[in-house]
Structures are given as structure tokens and as C-alpha cells.
């Protein structure tokens, strides 16, 4: 189901094709970087809806810059996108809710792709399934670590286990979750 773009089109050729006005290249850029931008925006804003809007803003701003030839080092497109994302997210907080305005053509707005949404739902289901398969103690360890941000030493003291046992339990659970994820990615 998932489409990965690890060895995706090199950023130089992508930029060159966009500069030539190739629409397919723009779509490739969106597919290649959209998910990562969304993940970044989600972490930085803590709100998936806001992150979704910001992802659109970032993609539009990046495309506009590439089209206008503002990306000087096309081999560093990822760094350019990251900088754009960071600035737009920071602006979002500064304007406290006012939406960023862009002067792009209306045709530029990207419709919400249902595939990532479905993937996210499937991912959530798999994670739940895998987590529930583990003991409550393992889940507690992951809760204290991942949600509450406690260190392994603090968790060890809390659940009355050794530091090493906590570390082993946590990494085993994360590894199993990752394995589950890989199966989803390969489908």
C-alpha cells in the first residue's frame, strides 16, 4: 500500500523538471516529501489538523520557490524544504491562528490524498493490535517512556525492575512494532 521514495528521483533532476514546467514532477515532489513534512508538522504543532494545513502551505511555498528558481542548490532540496517548513510553522505560532496567505494560483491547492489517511488508520490499528498483544507491564514501560517522557532509570524504579530489563523490554516491543510496520509498508 505504501509507496516509498527512498531512492526517489534525485532532487537535482526533480528541480530541473519542475523548472521546465513538468506537472508530473511537481506531483512527485509532493509524494516524495509530503509525509515527512506532515510528520514534522505534527511533532512541532502537536495537532494533526493544523499539521495537515501546514503541510499544504509548506508544499505550496516550496513549489512556488522551485518554479521561480529560488532554490540555488538543487542538491540540497531537503534542507530547503526543512527550512521552509520550520519558518512556516514558527510563523503559524507567531500569528497565533491566522492562516498563512499565499498568492499561488487556486489550481495549486492539493486535494487531500485518501491513501495516506487510510494508511495512517491502518497503522493505528496495527499498533493497537500489537501493543495489546504484549503484557501490561511492557505497555506501562512504553507509556512512561513514550508518552510521559521518563528516563529508563525512572521507569525502572517505578516498575521495580532493573534498568537493563526495562531497556530490553522496551526495545523488544519497539522492534516488534517496527516489524509490523514493515509488513504494512511491503504490502
Amino acid at each position, binding site marked *: 500500500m505504501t509507496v516509498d521514495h527512498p531512492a526517489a528521483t534525485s532532487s537535482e533532476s526533480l528541480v530541473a523538471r519542475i523548472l521546465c514546467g513538468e506537472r508530473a514532477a511537481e506531483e512527485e515532489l509532493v509524494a516524495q516529501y509530503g509525509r515527512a513534512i506532515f*510528520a514534522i508538522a505534527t511533532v512541532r504543532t502537536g495537532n*494533526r489538523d493544523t499539521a495537515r494545513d501546514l503541510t499544504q502551505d509548506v508544499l505550496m511555498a516550496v513549489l512556488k520557490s522551485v518554479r521561480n528558481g529560488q532554490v540555488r542548490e538543487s542538491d540540497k532540496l531537503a534542507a530547503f524544504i526543512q527550512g521552509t517548513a520550520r519558518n512556516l510553522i514558527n510563523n503559524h505560532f507567531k500569528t497565533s491562528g491566522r492562516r498563512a496567505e499565499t498568492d499561488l494560483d487556486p489550481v495549486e491547492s492539493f486535494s487531500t490524498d485518501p491513501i495516506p489517511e487510510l494508511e*495512517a488508520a491502518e*497503522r493505528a490499528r496495527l499498533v493497537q493490535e500489537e501493543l495489546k498483544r504484549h503484557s501490561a507491564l511492557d505497555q506501562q514501560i512504553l507509556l512512561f517512556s*513514550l*508518552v510521559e517522557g521518563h528516563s529508563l532509570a525512572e521507569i525502572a524504579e517505578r516498575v521495580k525492575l532493573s534498568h537493563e530489563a526495562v531497556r530490553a523490554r522496551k526495545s523488544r516491543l519497539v522492534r516488534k512494532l*517496527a516489524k509490523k510496520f514493515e509488513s504494512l509498508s511491503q504490502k
Partner: protein
Amino acid sequence: MDCSLIKTADLAEKYLHSRLDEAEMDAFETHLLECAACRRQLELLQSAQANLSERAHEIRTWTPVKPFFLRWQTMSVAALVVVVVAGAVAGAFFFRGKETEQTLTVQHIPSADERAAAQEKSNQATGIAEMVAPADVPNSEKRIDGLPLDGHNYVDFSHKNKGVGKTKGIAPKTGAAQSSGINLGKGPEKNSDRNVAEGSSETGSGQESTRVAKTDPKASQPIPSPHGEEAPTLTQAQGVELYHLGSTSAPAFTFSGFTSNEQNAEGAGDISSNARPAHAIDSRRTAFRDAMAAYLEGKYSDASGLLEQAALKEPGALDVQFYLGVCRLLIGQPQRAIEPLTNAAKVSSPVLQQQAHYYLAKAYMQSLRLKEAEDELRIASQLTGPLKNDASGLLKRLQAFRAQLAEN
């Protein structure tokens, strides 16, 4: 930055918790845009974080179940102990009975003069007993039976914050504490705004004193009821009933509830994590973070102080107001809990609004402002949320209680 460094240094998790500095964050995000594997790892952690946040209460309150054989062994040992103790008691009775029989055989038969003297002594003792315990005091005023504490004297009950009236489903195992601002006992009152006088002769005249924490000048100013309702006069039995109604426990909290100042100001704030399943802790909310860490450890007094600081930094944050109110309630300052809880009740989400109204009702109850408590419970019972049934049930009990008070 490469994948192996990210893996060994747990950078993805640190990134989720905003524990990377700006340069590290930029480098990590740039790598994320280029590496699908690391992006997937981050998505995995985000999904797990969201799922665990949703089930945080369930997971946190889990207690280990012993394996069957262990339980069986425990039961065997317990049974053995019971048999031994029962045997010992039976043996003791048996031998004591023998001794009594032997004693009876040599019992002294008193003369007529001795019997008259004993009768006189007995009459004197009865007279003293009548002076101490007037006959017109009903037994129910001296000892309350049928309480969940198996007939413990309620004076003892008032000094122990036992787990009665626990709010179903919302109290976490860690940091949960029962609290009521009402103190029915004679003994020193530590965390109470109200002190209902103890003793059958005093309760008859309805003496009631208001006690406040000496260290807190604000707490010493009684808040007048806008309804003009006078504080009711309670017997001890009624005080116990009100204690049951007003006692409360700490609502759950998960760290995923952290939001930015801007979001709180913009969106009128959120109280808990439900609206935002997965996101990082906002490093700007350090006071709130510290306060809630203390809250989770059950240090409500510390949490209250830190939340006061957080409220100064984030005046628009309704989550701060809510937990400040709850903490004050839990440390026995119900009157001071009213203002922050009233602020928190302005939150837009009905579920969170319900929580705020519910705890506000508790604060009013502990402040003996029963009419206002009833109003708040009515609102809470009309809102959609997990406390709907609790609020409805409590409302009925409070209405019955007020009707009983009115009759008296």
C-alpha cells in the same frame, strides 16, 4: 546525520519529546525528508504514542495478576492459618469453660448485708452512666452503622482519607487520593476548610465553625453565596453523608495533554489529551510540566504551588486552571478551588466542560454551598461525557440530602 546515529542515540524519541536543540532538530528533520526508514520509525512512535495516550488510564491502573499456583499457595497458607487460629480459640474457650465450672463450685454466697451494699454500689454506677450519656440521645447520633467502613466510628473515619466515594473510572492508580474538605472529628484538622462540630450536645444546637489554612490569607475570606443560601446546620450523620457526597479523587492526566500557549489562547484551551492524541511536550510549559509531574506523584500541595506559577505565565490556559482547582480541592481548600474550576468550565469541549462542572460541584459541596453544587451537577449530568452517570447519581443523592435538610 545518519540512520545508525539516530538509532543508537534514540534521536527519534528525543525529537518527539522536543529534547533536541535547534541544530540537531534541523539536521534530524532534513534527514527525515530524505530517509523513508527513519520517517517510518517516527510515524511508528507517533502511532504508539497516540494509542498509549488514549489508553493511558487503563494501562497505568493495571495491577499484576498473580499466577494461579501462587494464588493457590496463598489460599492454602491462609486456610491453614485460619484452621490453626480457630483451633486455638476453640481450645482456649474449652479450657476457660472448665476453669469457670471449677470457680463456680467454690463461689462465695454473699450474706444479706453484702448483697445490699453491692446493690447500692451498682445504683451509684448507673447514675454516673446516665449523667455521661443522656437517654434522649439516639444511638445513631453516637455511632453510625451501615457505612462502607463496617461500623467504624465516624470520628475515626474523618481522620482517614479512605477510598470511599471513589469516582468511577477516572482516578488513576498513581497519585489518586480521596479528599473531602469536611472534617467531622474532634482531632486536629489538617486539610479542611470546614469543620462540623462533634459531639451529640453540640450537634443539636448546630454549631459549625469555619476553619481555614493559616498560611493562606486568601483562604480566610469566605466567599458569599450568590444564591444567598445559608450554610446548612448538620448533624454528625448528615455530615458523614455530605462527606461521602463531597469526597473526590484525582482525575487522570497524561503528558500528551501539553499544548502551546498560543493554542490555548486561540482555542480556549483544552484540558486533556483526548483532543490531541500525539504530540510533543511543549518546552515552554515547564511550570505546567513540573506541576503535573508532582500531580502524578500525588504531591498535590506542590502541584498546586507550581500550577499557581503556571497560571501567572499562561493566564489563558484552561488546563492549568482545571488542575489548579482540582489540586486545591484535593488538599482541602475547596473555596479556593471554585474560581479556577469556574474558569476551566469555559472550555469549549463538552467532555472537558463536564469534568470542570463535576469538580466544581464537589468544591461547592465541600464548601457547604449545596444549591450551587446542585446547579453544577445538573449541568454536568446534561453534558455528554464519561461523568454523566456519576453526575446524575450524585445529583439525585444531593437532592435527597437537601430535601432531608429542609425537613429538619
